[in-house]
């Protein structure tokens, strides 16, 4: 279906350029982060990468801990690829694309232990905080995953605990207390088309990818989550190169926070 487009994209890559004139490993400019865009959320952020725009809201809910971790709080990540943002998205429960996006962002935060779950415990065995992260796409011009992940991180930084008297939460009043957040895990997706690697794909480029590797890394450069997608296999050499690119780009993106 996209034979011509793929040929053209590869032709441009061989000339070290892309459909919008960028270099293969260049992110769109500007990358902007706006904090506190939703006053009803405990924390929120809006991220724009080129024309792609995502809003993430964080809500803090009190619940019972899981039986096997009575002294730990937890997170929950949901993503909605809103039909608002792309004519091909349909209304209804999250499809596999949204589910994968949410789970990849979740893993990056959870596995890096970026949130100290022990500090989210209120009363062992009875009450813990659950940090609920909701990702909503506003305008999809490619690379929703990286934009969502950056916005999730920014929303976590923006979050403040609501007033809690030990019994009930008063969502109308926020405290100054931030979330116990460190390490700033950030996933970046690297894409393989032909023999070329690119980052920050446009919508048209997303139609012709052969393989993609999303790599989450911490501020220190350690890897904390990975996800391979796409139909084509990758050699270990390619994986090594893609990991380096992702870690490098994550450092660059963190500068926008």
């Amino acid at each position, binding site marked *: 279906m996209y034979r*011509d487009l793929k040929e053209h994209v590869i032709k441009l890559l061989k000339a070290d350029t892309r459909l919008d004139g960028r270099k293969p490993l260049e992110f769109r400019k500007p990358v902007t982060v706006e904090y506190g865009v939703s006053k009803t959320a405990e924390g929120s952020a809006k991220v724009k990468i080129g024309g792609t725009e995502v809003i993430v809201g964080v809500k803090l809910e009190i619940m019972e801990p899981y039986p096997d971790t009575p002294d730990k709080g937890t997170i929950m990540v949901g993503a909605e690829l809103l039909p608002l943002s792309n004519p091909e998205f349909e209304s209804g429960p999250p499809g596999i694309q949204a589910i994968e996006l949410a789970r990849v962002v979740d893993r990056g935060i959870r596995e890096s232990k970026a949130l100290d779950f022990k500090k989210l415990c209120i009363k062992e065995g009875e009450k813990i905080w659950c940090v609920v992260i909701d990702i909503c796409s506003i305008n999809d011009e490619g690379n929703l995953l990286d934009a969502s992940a950056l916005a999730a991180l920014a929303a976590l930084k923006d979050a403040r605990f609501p007033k809690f008297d030990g019994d009930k939460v008063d969502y109308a009043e926020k405290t100054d207390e931030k979330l116990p957040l460190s390490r700033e895990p950030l996933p970046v997706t690297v894409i393989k088309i032909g023999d070329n690697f690119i980052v920050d794909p446009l919508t048209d480029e997303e139609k012709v990818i052969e393989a993609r590797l999303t790599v989450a890394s911490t501020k220190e450069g350690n890897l904390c989550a990975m996800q391979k997608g796409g139909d084509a296999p990758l050699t270990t050499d390619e994986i090594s190169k893609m990991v380096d690119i992702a870690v490098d780009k994550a450092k660059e993106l963190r500068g926008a926070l």
Partner: protein
Amino acid sequence: MGKLIAKEKAIVVPGEVLAEGMDHLPGSGTYREGERILAGKLGLTYIDGRTIKLISLSGRYIPKRNDTIIGKVTDVLMSGWRIEINSPYTAMLSMKDATSDFIAKGADLTKYFNLGDHLVTKIVNVTSQKLVDVSMKGPGLRKLHGGRILEVNTNKVPRVIGKQGSMVTMIKDATGCRITVGQNGLIWIDGEPKMELTAVKTIQKIAEESHLSGLTDKIKAYLDKETKK
């Protein structure tokens, strides 16, 4: 006796009062309500004698007979192809309109046009229910190879083409690219990568500033600057 309220080349919103009294006539995009003429869409006013018309600034392509458009094959059927034409309405290309060659019944139609192929076609018929027939028989009508497809709003196409093709010719000359413009807003560009990108950016600039004055000079200056780099 009648008062013209809207200025020439003004941007007006639906429901905005353009004229009062019976002196003026409601042209396309406008309508009369009692003693007033009101805007019937978001548009740019154009006063032609006593008639007030609106030029559309946005809106999807509605197929018109005799338009040359670029479409994409999305289905290969028993006796023809279904073509997506960047419109709420799809088009049909039947075997008999595909080529002057004789196609035998039961022949493999994908040998002629396959899924994903982009075609330059001409609309030969549109019914009242907006069923669309297209034909590939005619000068310039062909399957496209290579190059890239750019999408602009259909209402900007006249500015991209220019008077007697002057604007698009200027872009072709400056960038050395082959360019085919479809009335439905799809534009095919083929050339050397840097020049292709310049052509794309130039066309996008025309689309953004289509309703402003002095466009031709601005574009000429832009092309001069970009191609000297």
